[in-house]
């Protein structure tokens, strides 16, 4: 459960006691060659665990590496170091046939409803593809697709239509249907609601919550918006420049953040109540976090130190390790 405790199960441990997903010291570097090897990695030693039925939220700003982590888990991006274990099995280097084997249990919902469905294929063909790959006969796959569409609140007739005939929110529900059609255990939702308007965003969030409760799913919910994450997640992992800053129960991290970056992130997220927002603004201004604009990324030490009001010499030389502060794990020398 805790971030710090690495996988220390005995070889004989049964599958039931394995966490759903265990990410250990994951490192991802983009590009090849000497330049890439010396640059700051996009993901820099990230570890976390998702238990059965648990939803973990991965929050961070652009460039924090949150989507890269999702891609590495799904095999869409090669990991440069560390391991990803799915139900105890190392899938870091899984090849397509291995992916096909676990692909029914580990699935994804992506951000952009416009590009996540092939515009030239019917909804039915898109939904059935994952079943057909696994040898399910066409008529059965079609029936399953119809059932699944109904489950996400769309008419069964939608199987014969094309994505362009649906709105963004409906398409995102179709994406959810495609993810769930082969009864997965873990779904990676990469900014799954960010492109949607408020009212449709709420529809999809509710749907994800319902399906989780009904099917006992685990989610890795990746988003830049901490309020959206806290609706769905039991635990939240906060990233900054590829490193975990803070992780812990959703309520603790969002209501009582310990890391200066998390504090800045929470205070900067505006609320639609003018009086409360004025208070938040005052809090944010009192934090003294420096602007992101003037800061260049330099490797070594704490990645947040140049913006951090608490930073000292120590922060430039020594990368803080995650340690327990209250209910959460915090990577800060001074939290």
């Amino acid at each position, binding site marked *: 459960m805790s971030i710090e405790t690495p996988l220390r199960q005995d070889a004989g441990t049964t599958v039931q006691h394995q966490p759903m997903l265990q990410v250990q010291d994951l490192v991802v570097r983009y590009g090849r060659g000497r330049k890439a090897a010396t640059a700051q990695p996009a993901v820099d030693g990230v570890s976390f665990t998702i238990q059965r039925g648990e939803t973990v939220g991965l929050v961070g*700003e*652009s460039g924090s590496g949150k989507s890269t982590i999702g891609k590495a888990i*799904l*095999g*869409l991006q090669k990991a440069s170091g560390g391991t990803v274990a799915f139900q105890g099995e190392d899938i870091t280097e899984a090849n397509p*046939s291995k*992916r*096909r084997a676990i*692909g029914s249990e580990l*699935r*994804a919902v992506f951000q952009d409803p416009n*590009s*996540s*469905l*092939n515009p030239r294929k019917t909804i039915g063909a898109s939904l059935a*593809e994952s079943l057909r*790959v696994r040898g399910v006969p066409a008529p059965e796959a079609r029936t399953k697709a119809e059932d699944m569409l*109904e489950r*996400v*609140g*769309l008419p069964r007739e939608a199987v014969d239509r*094309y994505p*362009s*005939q*649906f709105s963004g*929110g*409906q398409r995102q529900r179709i*994406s959810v249907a495609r993810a769930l059609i082969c009864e997965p255990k873990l779904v990676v939702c990469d900014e799954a609601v960010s492109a949607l*308007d*408020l*009212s*449709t*965003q*709420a*529809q999809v969030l*509710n749907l994800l*919550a319902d399906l989780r409760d009904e099917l006992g799913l685990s989610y890795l919910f990746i988003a*830049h*918006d901490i*309020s*959206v994450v*806290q*609706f769905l997640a039991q635990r939240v992992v906060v990233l900054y420049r590829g490193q975990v800053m803070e992780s812990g129960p*959703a309520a603790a991290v969002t*209501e009582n953040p310990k890391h200066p970056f998390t504090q800045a*992130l929470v205070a*900067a*997220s*505006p*609320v*639609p*109540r*003018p*009086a409360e*927002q004025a208070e938040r*603004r005052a809090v944010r201004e009192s934090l003294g976090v420096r*602007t*992101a*604009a*003037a800061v260049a990324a330099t490797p070594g030490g704490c990645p947040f130190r140049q913006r951090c009001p608490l930073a000292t010499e120590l922060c430039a030389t020594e990368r803080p390790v995650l340690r327990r502060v209250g209910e959460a794990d915090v990577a800060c020398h001074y939290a």
Partner: protein
Amino acid sequence: MIPTLPATTLSTQRKSALTKLSGHRLLASPAGLAGTVWLAAMIIASLTAPWWMPFKTEDQDFTAVLSGPTAAHWLGTDELGRDILSRIFASAAETLGTSFITVMVGVGLGTLMALAAANSQRAEGVISRVTEIMMSLPGTVIILAVIGAVGTNIPLIMGILGVLISAGIYRVMLGQAKSLQNQLYVDAAKVDGLNPLAISVRHVLPGLSTTIVVQSALIFAVGLLIQAGLAFIGFGPPLPQPSWGGMIQSASQHVYDAPWLMVPTGVVLALTVLSANAIGNALGKAPNATASHLPSAAIRRKRATQAAAAAAAAPIVQNPPVAGQLSVRGLSVGVDGGTPLVTDVSFDVEPGTVLGLVGESGCGKTMTALSLMGLLPSGVAVTGGQILWNGKNLAAATDKDMEAVRGRDIALISQEPMRALDPMFTVGYQLTSAIRRLRSFGRAAARAEALDLLEKVGIVDAPRILKTYPHQISGGMAQRVAIALALSGKPRLLVADEPTTALDVTVQAEILSLLRSLVKDTGMSVVMVTHDLGVVADICDQVAVMYAGQVVENGATDSILDDPRHPYTLALLAADPHANSAHDMPERLATIKGQVPQPKDWPSGCRFAARCQFAGSACEVPVPLLPSGSGEGRVRCVKADELAMEGLAWVATDVPVVNPVPAEVPARHRLDIIEKDMA
């Protein structure tokens, strides 16, 4: 998100057209249709030529050498008295067929290379190198050398030409193949465990089909021309077999005594090439390209006439004009040719205040904002109402009139700061040339002012930033630069179109603070377009909530957000996870069923009724903006008072909506269904 609304309307039209056979697009274009007919006629005529040709290709009629068109020889005869018509069609089949070899080889190889390159970066590196070499070869010279080696084996030569051409095809296809390969549905297929080959065949190749057809048509034309050119310089099929190029060559020998000879073969060749090009162009025409941000001269002239007519028709009602006050009265904006995008929008912005235009996408916020500056995208125009500024009606102003207002009185900042700055010029050039233009400063004074402005918007190393190009700075920094650019003419009103949507929240907070202090320091006013109710709470004094092209509720920010009266505002607040903190986060968020209707589907009654929990039969008639109970706000809902009195809140529908009405059903039908549901 600029022209959100027309973009969606246009894209639906495009998508539905796409699902049909691409042939429809071909038939829709007169040139494409004519081309198809000509090519088809050529193919049929050439294939059947042996049966209908009036003469054999080698029949010599010495009574009519070098004759013009006659009853016997419709297209005349050549220097040996051979019938031109027969010779043209006798050689047509082979000419067309061998050109097709170039198409098959060139487009086939090019497509395969593009698919392979899109699939792996390593393959792309190798293939791109090879094709770069191929592209920098003098193709014609190589082909001639090949002819030297293998003789005039036309099919083989045309095949090798195809290989040379494939490099160009690859270049054309690569970008598209890569963008298809980067689509999320390809990622989804990878997660499914599909192998790379299957992904290329099932998800990438179909997306290239239009380009393949277009390129095939164009390459077919190239093949025809090159083949004829080769025959012209003596490398055609072995004599006495006729060829188009060879016939033009022999005609050219007689241009002094029989110029007519040039005409028939030349025209047939040109028409065939023209047909192939026309087919390619008709199929390849982007059905609805993004709207231009600078309408063409023809459109601008038309606009100016319309503006003059509108100005003459509508007298200005504002009296007396208040300096720095913006009054929008009954503003309507629509697509040229009818569909309204914004109807009857009115609001005032007092100096030194911030008005928020808030709503979901497709509600007309951005169109309303852009109309204030006369910067609606081409194809969209103000269709009614007034925009009153300093005693002038900007809605009836010409582009020329607006040039005096833009930048100096009213300035714009937009959603994507990176795209809002010109990538080809330095920040310094863009900023100083705006200052020199808007404030009539000299070079040195403009530079000093630019440094001053950059510091004012919170940039610490202004001299360095002046020398950078937009791609060298971060999004937050670019938005600061864009704000500095907007301030360069000391405007009294700033139109901000989702200025923080593309930014990280911490950067958003910084930009909002900056805007707030600018308003305080300079006394300018702001029209802030946003979908984020939190941003409204943070910076706006007044709010106008927009839905489906109308203002449905307006008033002071505090009263609207704390005590909303319109069901849509109620629903938006209930659906917003930001409105709740972790400890009081509800099990389910409130939702609004369905989605914002397309402009063409707007009902005549309340436009929100189809999605409203409280709608009834009273909502079927048009609803005016009525005074709402609180303060000076107004609300467009017949039930607002009733709801406020009973203290009704928008409830979270606890059951997931099963079988919602699909998007295609017109809104009026949806209303029926909802009423049935409520009954």
